[in-house]
């Protein structure tokens, strides 16, 4: 990711150091110019990206959750064989997106994680993406191991329980996460997306675009 030759980097670093010194000397309240993007700031303590789990998307690509850092997300948990609520979860997120401008939408990704990793293989996820005509560029239908599902649900405050007939009870929620992995808003209303939630999504997406 960092292709800058080191002398240049060193020069930048000393420049940054110099400006910090100047800012201090002047007693300026204004922060020094932002460090190069490669110097990642520490994660906020309440970030979901502390969770060391790996998600595999419908394209078969496995990636650590914290690789999502930088772009805001709409997160949800679902399972593909769910007939009623889970399709509505997808429609709800589509409704949120329909209420955004193209520019706001561009900064936003969608990740839906299966609570049924036993049945929701990569193939099943891929089929669901195709069948539901989901934009696979910005949307990821993902799976992970059962222990990681439980942890992610715990972080997101989602309850779920396997039933003997193969169905699941689960909280249906769409959760907005900002670029640093902080939960910024959540909605449990399905169908016509809540106006207050859409407003938060817009604000977080715009902040990410700056």
């Amino acid at each position, binding site marked *: 990711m960092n292709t800058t030759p080191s002398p240049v980097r060193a020069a930048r670093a000393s420049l940054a150091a110099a400006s910090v010194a100047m800012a201090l000397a002047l007693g300026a309240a204004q922060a020094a110019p932002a460090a190069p993007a490669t110097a990642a700031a520490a994660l906020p303590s309440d970030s*979901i990206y502390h969770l060391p789990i790996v998600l595999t998307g419908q394209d078969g690509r496995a990636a650590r959750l914290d690789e999502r850092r930088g772009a805001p997300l709409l997160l949800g948990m679902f399972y593909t064989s769910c007939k009623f*609520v889970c399709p509505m979860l997808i429609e709800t997120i589509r409704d949120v997106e329909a209420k955004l401008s193209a520019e706001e939408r561009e900064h936003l990704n969608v990740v839906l994680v299966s609570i049924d990793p036993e049945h929701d293989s990569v193939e099943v996820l891929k089929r669901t993406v195709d069948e539901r005509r989901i934009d696979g560029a910005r949307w990821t239908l993902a799976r992970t191991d059962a222990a990681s599902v439980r942890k992610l649900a715990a972080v997101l405050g989602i309850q*779920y329980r396997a039933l003997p007939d193969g169905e699941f009870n689960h909280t249906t929620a769409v959760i907005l996460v900002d670029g640093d992995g902080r939960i910024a808003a959540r909605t449990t209303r399905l169908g016509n997306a809540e106006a207050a939630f859409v407003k938060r999504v817009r604000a977080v997406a715009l902040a990410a675009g700056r």
Partner: protein
Amino acid sequence: MGATTLRRTRASGLAAALLAALAGSASAADYVTVPAGTLASAIAGDARAAPVPVEAFSMRVTPVSKGEFRRFVESRPEWQRGRIAQTFADAGYLHDWRDATTVGDPATESQPVVNVSWFAAEAYCEGEGGRLPTWNEWEYVAAADATRRDARADPAWRARILAWYSTSARAALPAVGGAADVYGVRDVHGVVWEWVDDFNALLVDADSRSGDDPDKLKFCGAGAINLQDRENYAVLMRIALLSSLNAADSTTSLGFRCVRPLAKDPR
């Protein structure tokens, strides 16, 4: 339930604590095999295909002690008080300790660790090659007394457990290593509440709902769980406690123990 029951329970708890103290602290991670069986679940959602089968597993004899947890945070600083991410623990995490790596009075090291979040408990168990028990596994073991695998129908047994639930949480915790149940597991009742792996599966939801078909809208599949066995108040209390918690929460009377899969048959 009378005051006599309460007194007797306290007395036997004290005796158990003394015995444990005499026997010295339980060795770091003793596990015993809990054979497979079935659980008549207290939760109606499970009981449609009841009873629930429970596979054999290996369970820690005692809850994790403060001393054991101290050694864990010494080797894994990211789980120390003051360093742990807010995502994984609330402000009460290990607040009863003297500092991040000191429990306090050495005598307290053999008490069960409390004020731990679900995330920290899960991480500890992973360090022992296991995980937290599921609700079914824990309840399966909790149904036993010293001689029976399922003592739950016995009113005297129920009364004994409820007697502990009705005592104040302010009393100092006893050391781990009380009397063994039929499996050889200790301190399931009468010392601390315990986390379970799927604590967030107990869908007793208090949110007010709106819409045409509220149950269906909120949860896939059926609605929130129904309770099957209304006489078993102890189970009700455990469900009420666990379902009220978030995974980062910690309380002064909530600890944990771990389970492991049974070693595979070498054949």
